[in-house]
């Protein structure tokens, strides 16, 4: 190597390091998207049971830090996300949707557990609407089973506020759903249990 090659090597090495550090958050966005295809899948719902745990891999912990820093670990809360409906089509506010529950979600109501479903816009923030309504939350008093289904309406063409309606973006855009389960039962905390349980269906309406 001549002196020029040595100098260039010395310059290029830290340049590569700095470039990696600068690009890293964007790489994490890509990895976070990819990580939805790993972890646990149940119909259109996906989650990662390694949130907040030291035993999770360093890459996954970085991706989780990007999208959910400070989130509860899976003993306390399980965060399910949906980007598609139950048929696998991307969620988009050009359509309305019904979220159908034929079974209650398994949280420990005796210990103040509860669940909620929240809509997020394409920018991953809450959706602007005149009612400041962004989610539906359940508590123990609402009975849900195969004879008493719960239907949560996602509507872009809403004209009034309704108890089980969540507004979608008025403009046509992709959106996502978050199903947060606080104090999940033991069956939801393990992969096989989480994969098998009866989670809400997401049905496109028109």
């Amino acid at each position: 190597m001549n002196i020029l090659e040595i100098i260039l090597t010395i310059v290029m090495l830290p340049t590569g390091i700095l470039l990696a550090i600068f690009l890293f958050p964007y790489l994490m966005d890509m990895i976070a998207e990819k990580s939805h295809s790993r972890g646990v899948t149940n119909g259109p719902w996906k989650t990662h049971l390694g949130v907040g745990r030291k035993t999770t891999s360093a890459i996954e912990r970085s991706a989780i830090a990007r999208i959910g820093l400070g989130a509860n670990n899976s003993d306390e809360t399980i965060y399910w996300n949906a980007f598609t409906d139950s048929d696998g089509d991307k969620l988009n506010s050009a359509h309305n949707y019904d979220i159908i529950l034929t079974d209650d979600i398994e949280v420990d109501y005796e210990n103040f557990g509860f669940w909620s479903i929240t809509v997020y816009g394409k920018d991953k923030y809450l959706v602007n609407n005149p009612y400041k309504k962004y989610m539906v939350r359940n508590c123990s008093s609402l009975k849900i089973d195969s004879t008493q289904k719960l239907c949560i309406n996602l509507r872009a063409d809403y004209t009034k506020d309704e108890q089980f309606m969540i507004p979608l973006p008025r403009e046509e855009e992709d959106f996502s759903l978050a199903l947060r389960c606080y104090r999940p039962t033991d069956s939801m905390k393990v992969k096989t249990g989480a994969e098998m349980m009866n989670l809400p269906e997401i049905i496109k309406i028109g």
Partner: protein
Amino acid sequence: MIIIFSAIALLTGFLIGIVFSVLRYPLWEVKKIYRAFKAEGYLCGEFKHFSEKVDHNVKYIVKPNCETFYSVTFLKRGPRVYRISIPPLCDYFSIAFLDMYGNLIKYILNKDISDTHETNILISICNPDSENNLNHLRLDNKSMTWVIVRYATGIKDNIQGIPGRPGRLELLEQ
């Protein structure tokens, strides 16, 4: 040859940077939060209470949740002891103690507190003299501790939830 050496050096640097970033990224993000916390004038051990429900104007964090209120603080490195006073609560409540990488150390949950009277808990951080007795929480954490408190926003039987806050909790260094 120059181009090849430069490309190899650039790629090597890039890979080193990626590995370094993977290991340190969570710490950088928590430190960002800590700097913002201090910039707003809060001290370690002093709670910042987010008293308003999150709405569509909140853009400082992606995917904010609107079913819990938050209170956050940071605790200095040990050895030191704090006393936390928690008012009576009869809805979802949790206090998460995290290290500066966002890994969970310990929780205080509803089962650890009373729903009829105030609960006082001693929190000792790396204090070798601390005794493991009732209402005493020991944190073995060599770095600063990030504390996140969550309270449900609604009463038990209300589907949508109504705004409301329990009495404030207090944290005092002993």
